[in-house]
């Protein structure tokens, strides 16, 4: 396998160390409500996560575009002016930023929850979040990393077996 392809496959699995979870988890928290952002930030820090906060989805997107590997998880409010949670999910998909996203909202209509999941959120949580919920948010990152590793192993196997169809085209 060419080294370029290997880097693309193992990219999102870099820095993966099971013993390090969940302390030090790098979370990007997005909410236009300054009250809730303060509360959320405190809760995340109390879990020993590394927190970066944004009060606008556009700013969060810029940070992710700059370097998606800087974050393990995004936790974002849904209803925000200018760019909302749905649009953030869409843009992340478009830009191939595959960091897991948890959406949170005061709104809890079924259709809204479904729409979030369909647009790629890995979980929908009702605000205000409980500490117990925050403590286990790292599971999404863990699952994603595991999935990544499995895909990486499958591709390696395919190459060894002479099957090039599994390789990502650059």
């Amino acid at each position: 396998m060419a080294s370029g392809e290997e880097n693309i496959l193992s990219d999102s699995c870099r820095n993966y160390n099971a013993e390090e979870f969940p302390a030090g988890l790098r979370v990007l928290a997005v909410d236009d409500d300054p009250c809730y952002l303060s509360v959320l930030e405190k809760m995340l820090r109390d879990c020993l996560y590394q927190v970066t906060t944004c009060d606008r989805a556009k700013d969060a997107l810029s940070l992710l575009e700059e370097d998606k590997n800087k974050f393990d998880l995004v936790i974002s409010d849904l209803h925000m002016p200018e760019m909302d949670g749905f649009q953030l999910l869409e843009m992340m998909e478009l830009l191939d930023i595959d960091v897991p996203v948890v959406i949170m909202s005061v709104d809890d209509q079924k259709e809204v929850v479904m729409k979030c999941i369909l647009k790629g959120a890995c979980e929908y949580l009702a605000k205000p979040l409980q500490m117990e919920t925050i403590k286990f948010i790292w599971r999404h990152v863990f699952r994603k990393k595991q999935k990544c590793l499995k895909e990486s192993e499958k591709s390696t196997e395919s190459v060894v077996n002479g099957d090039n169809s599994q390789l990502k085209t650059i």
Partner: protein
Amino acid sequence: MDVVGQLQRQFIDYTASLYREGYVDDQFTQLQKLQDESSPDFVVEVITLFFDDCEKLINNMAKAMEQQVVDFKQVDSHVHQLKGSSSSVGAMRVKNTCVAFRTVCEAQNLEGCLRCLQQVNHDYSLLKNKLQTLFRLEQQILAAGGSIPMVE
């Protein structure tokens, strides 16, 4: 009972009344639990942010309703924001008024909206007074050398 003991008793009773009378709910307890040595003024800081947000949003709602043609969607978006921030800090009465407010907005009922605006302003003012009293009590306890009792 000594001064500290008396103040602590007052604090416990006052806090209990805030919950009993529906000014605050469990989320306010969560805020207090988050306060620690690394963030000793956490509750006051978040509540201050909330009061600033309240004032700003109430003003925006009032302005929107003074227009010749009222944009109910605009009003609703301000109410939705206030509902969000009030539930973040456990301001139960404010939050409940916002729920009613959203209903009249959806119905485009201007009179209903004006009533709700008055109510939400009233709820906010009351809560501000109550919490300022609570914070003053806390300061008095600390100044007298005591510690703030945890109210479950």
